[in-house]
């Protein structure tokens, strides 16, 4: 009998994680992919290249969370957060704490550590999508484990956006986003079709959704 099986026999609850509920992503296809939404008290990684729909997905998640009355934090590694996009995604800007780290990945990690350790936030987004790969590789597993432990303890859903997976065993869910094609309508960028693949699931699953451009807002500019 293997070690894990022995542990299960000795302490049945040892490997079971307490289910603290889920945060709906606001996108039905993604809710289905993630079995009802992003689990609270866990670390989730969203990865993908430029224009793969990571930010659209995260802002949809942010909008859904703030509409449910949650306090959210957006730790912005590169200072690329667009308030107008968040507003268009239905987010209540009064319930979002924006921490602009202006490209300093180390500050972003310290900020997310402070916020997750403090508790009280339903969703904490760590946006490292524009962070240099060499900076991300320097983040130790101990740091990721500390963040995962803080999320477990405080019940916050901690979501990290990157270009590739880095937290590995510390993240309970990894979603890889792939761009499919932009949707053009005449002179307008109408939206973008995205494919999301859930990794680290008992079986790999995929979902597709289309992020639509907020045309009314664009035409005003």
């Amino acid at each position, binding site marked *: 009998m293997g070690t894990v099986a022995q542990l299960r026999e000795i302490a049945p609850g040892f490997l079971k994680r307490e289910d603290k509920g889920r945060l709906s992503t606001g996108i039905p296809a993604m809710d289905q992919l993630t079995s009802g939404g992003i689990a609270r008290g866990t670390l989730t990684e969203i990865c993908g290249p430029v224009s793969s729909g990571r930010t659209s997905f995260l*802002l949809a998640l942010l909008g859904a969370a703030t509409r449910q009355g949650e306090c959210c934090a957006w730790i912005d590694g590169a*200072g690329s957060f667009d*308030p107008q996009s968040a507003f268009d995604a239905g987010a209540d*800007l009064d319930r979002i704490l924006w921490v602009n780290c202006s490209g300093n990945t180390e500050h972003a990690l310290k900020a997310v550590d402070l916020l997750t350790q403090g508790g009280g936030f339903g969703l904490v987004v760590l946006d490292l999508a524009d962070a240099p790969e060499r900076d991300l590789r320097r983040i130790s597993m101990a740091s990721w484990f500390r963040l995962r432990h803080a999320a477990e303890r405080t019940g916050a859903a901690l979501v990290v956006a990157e270009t590739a997976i880095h937290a590995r065993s510390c993240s309970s869910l990894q979603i890889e986003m792939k761009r499919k094609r932009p949707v053009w309508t005449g*002179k307008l960028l109408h939206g973008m079709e995205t494919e999301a693949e859930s990794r680290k699931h008992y079986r790999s699953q995929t979902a597709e*959704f289309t992020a639509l451009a907020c045309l009314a807002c664009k035409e005003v500019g």
Partner: protein
Amino acid sequence: MYACLHAPGNLPLLLECARFFSPHIEEIDEDTVVFDVRGLASLFGPPEQLAEAMERRVGVAANIAIAANPDAAIHAAHGRRGVTVIAPGREEDALARLPVNLLCASAGTAELLELWGIRTFGEFAKLPPLGVAARLGEEGVRLQRLARGDGGRQLRPIEDPLQFEEAMELEYPVDLLEPLSFILSRLLNEVCRRLGARSLATNEIRLLLTLEKAPEHAVMVRLPVPMLDPAGFLKMLQLELSGHPPAAPVLKAKLAAEPVKPRRTQQGLFVAMSPEPEKLELTISRLRHLTGPDKVGAVAIVDTHRPDSFAMRAFAPGVGTCQGVGAPARLSLRRYRPAKYAQVVLERERPARISSPVVNGAIAVAKGPWRSSGDWWSAEPWNRDEWDVEATHGGLYRLYHELDSRRWFVEGSYD
């Protein structure tokens, strides 16, 4: 029970001692205070132990008296040295030997008592009340009741002005934050203790540091919610001072707190969790110290068409309410701040190739231009053409061409 402290020339010490035991203090004269000590038995034990605690606290040689009414305590403290504890009902016996001049009678009454040969409280108390009333009138009746230890008046507590300030002058200039923190901690503890004694909190702490051969250094900590946490205030002041240190060694520290009513909230059982405001404020202070003062907070969209216009506000989320779900996924922009300068090659007046720090190479699709302009009446006008482009590697970007400077920039990527 009431306690009286009498020590010539030490009124500040007497008041400080009295404030430690009671908020209801009456200042009798420049050497005497009397205060209410009812209900302190559970904290200090019987009156004798309470008197010992006062003796230790006052720090100077003082007459201390505890009695059932303020007048008996005052007369005992004026007339007897050391500690006097008068049990309820025993006032007449305890005060009997005191000289009658302690009653502070008017000149005429004092002369009559002198002529009658009345020297002590006890002798005056034994006179027939009807005879005293007939010969000395209303004043005589009142004085005889006092001589019997039968004072029935209410305490007239002094009203502290609602100024919560503490200051400390230093013996030598302090130029390091750590020793200064000890001083600030003491000042904050005292201010918070005084606020707490009045069931108040504060939402603004002002610190004024007098410096050696330099202008005064002021630090202000504003809080979105009233708090009464000296440790939290100290941490916020430390973060402020380490971010903006004084220009010269500190000679004097003066701390003031704005008194406000404390926050009282009743959370609902089904309301989403939110950070504790007190803890959140400290966390935000730490984040500001880490990233910069204008980099942390809630963002608000400004009513203008100028691209990337927003304002930073204090983050105060309040109680969350569920507004339901909905709203389809929206295509979002990731902004480059500042926008990246680009070199763009045009073909048939459309971007065909781009060279910039974030995207290089051929452009597969370019849609535009979307012209916008504004603020031409101000010093910072904007006038530009926007393009949405798809690079050959698949990335979607927003470019804009500044019409006045004829320069191209990458504003952000769609993601």
